[in-house]
């Protein structure tokens, strides 16, 4: 089959790879219908997450059709149209039973790598390095889905492929941030990053009853999407003092909840960006935490800061004093999509969550390198490049 593969730092290829096979009783094979690029892929592409091997198949956000089922699968059958959560989680361990699916004890076959890096292992993720399990990704004609009764979800008839696609990762990641941050009716919520995940975090916060939601970015087309499709307010950080604007928008208090949906390659217009870039390139820090710092300074006393963007290692100049003295709650997580996807699909079927606008560039899988280039460089207003393996 054809697949988009990582071939080295900033090198993407399209090549023939073997078809996947059923290896465990709980597996299904899915013929991929649509597979999206994700901002977190750019960390792999840029070499910031080092456990990638040339030839690894990329992609973790996808939907498609079930074409084969293992003998222990009870929920799915051939021909089902499904969306699959990007994390591999067993559904049976203590963490999964608490709804903390991305912390699964059993979903990462290579636990030694993340135990070495972080002290404990978390679940696995498709197409996201050997540290996260070495699972083949979804930018391919077919993909093997382990623990399919847990991770694959039937798509309601009235939800289009392009809408359901983002119930795989962007939307449940956004839901994870808003819910785990404890958004309450009446809250003012600020979201850093107007990509797919940031937009979905904002939408989730609105549906959870937030009084006002504000999304911060610098790209006009993304901020316009937020206003048009999400219904939230926006701040362009290149033309505004973000903490000052947020104070004004919240009666001088600062936001109750600050959700950072940017991650380890954050940008800022100030000198701290140069500082962070130099330290990252010299490997003196692995991640650039610009947006996290701003979220911590902006958050109201006693509020919550949630790191939803992907970070891999260590950061510098972290304002721990503000965290402690302002009595902030600092939380983070990969997505626990298994618990949120049914609710998200319901919202999608009622037209309360719309995501088609995120797929700004839909193309053949043969255009894998072009798609990643457009996505990375944000060419032509690219918010997400989406591949159609069957085209």
């Amino acid at each position, binding site marked *: 089959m054809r697949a988009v593969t990582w071939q080295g730092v900033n090198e993407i290829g399209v090549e023939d790879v073997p078809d996947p096979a059923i290896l465990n009783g709980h597996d299904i094979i899915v013929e991929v219908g649509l597979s999206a690029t994700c901002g977190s892929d750019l960390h792999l592409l840029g070499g910031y997450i080092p456990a990638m091997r*040339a030839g690894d198949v990329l992609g973790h956000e996808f939907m498609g059709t079930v074409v084969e089922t293992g003998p222990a699968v009870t929920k799915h059958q051939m021909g089902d149209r499904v969306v699959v959560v990007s994390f591999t989680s067993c559904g049976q*361990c203590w963490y999964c039973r608490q709804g903390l699916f991305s912390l699964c004890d059993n*979903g990462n076959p290579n636990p030694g790598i993340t135990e070495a890096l972080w002290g404990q292992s978390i679940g696995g993720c498709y197409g996201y390095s050997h540290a996260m399990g070495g699972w083949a990704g979804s930018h391919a004609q077919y993909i093997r889905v382990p623990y399919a009764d847990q991770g694959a979800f039937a798509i309601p008839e009235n939800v289009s492929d392009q809408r359901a696609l983002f119930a795989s990762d962007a939307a449940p990641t956004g839901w994870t941030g808003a819910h785990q941050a404890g958004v309450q009716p009446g809250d003012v919520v600020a979201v850093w990053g107007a990509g797919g995940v940031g937009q979905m975090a904002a939408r989730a916060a609105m549906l959870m009853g937030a009084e006002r939601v504000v999304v911060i970015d610098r790209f006009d087309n993304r901020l316009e999407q937020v206003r048009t499709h999400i219904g939230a307010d926006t701040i362009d950080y290149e033309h505004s003092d973000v903490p000052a604007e947020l104070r004004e928008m919240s009666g001088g208090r600062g936001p109750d909840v600050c959700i950072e949906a940017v991650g380890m390659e954050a940008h800022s217009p100030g000198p701290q960006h140069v500082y962070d870039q130099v330290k990252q390139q010299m490997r003196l820090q692995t991640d650039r935490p610009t947006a996290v710092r701003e979220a911590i300074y902006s958050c109201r006393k006693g509020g919550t800061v949630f790191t939803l963007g992907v970070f891999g290692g260590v950061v510098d100049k972290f304002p721990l004093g503000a965290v402690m003295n302002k009595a902030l709650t600092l939380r983070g997580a990969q997505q626990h999509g298994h618990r949120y996807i049914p609710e998200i699909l319901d919202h999608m079927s009622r037209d309360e969550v719309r995501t088609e606008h995120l797929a700004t560039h839909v193309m053949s899988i043969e255009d894998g390198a072009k798609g990643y280039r457009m996505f990375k460089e944000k060419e032509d207003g690219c918010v997400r490049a989406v591949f159609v393996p069957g085209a």
Partner: protein
Amino acid sequence: MSPGVAARAARAGGALVGQVRSSLGGSSSPAGASRPASGWLAVTVLCEPGALDPAALPAPLAELGDRIEVDVRPAPGDKGTELYARLRGRKARGGGSAGSRLTGNDAEAELRSALRRAKQLVEVGEVLAVDPAPHGKRSATPSGAVLESWTKDAPAAGVL
């Protein structure tokens, strides 16, 4: 890759991780990477204590026979059952360098892997497999050799 090259690659990976973790922890040994003094390795399994009988252990642990001793205790807070195992006749101290533990090249690597597989068998009913996973052409590079070796040993590696 020959066994000698693989072993050297694993050692290189272990040394690298050890160096990184040491620099973060500010000590000569990576934080949390040492074996407990008692020698017990433990996992918590989400099951009733009665489901783990030391006399009828899951196959991965049963295969180690008299080489290990096992203890089972209820976990607090309804977290399941704590399953402990350690090697008989182990050295009183040590248990391999931090680098060798983190890369699965220490004496307890086989036991570590067995505990993880036993937990999966009880909780899920099968041991998760990832290989063979579809992939494209693998170019031969030093960093690729280190990663392949570390990945191969990762199921038996770590701080467990």
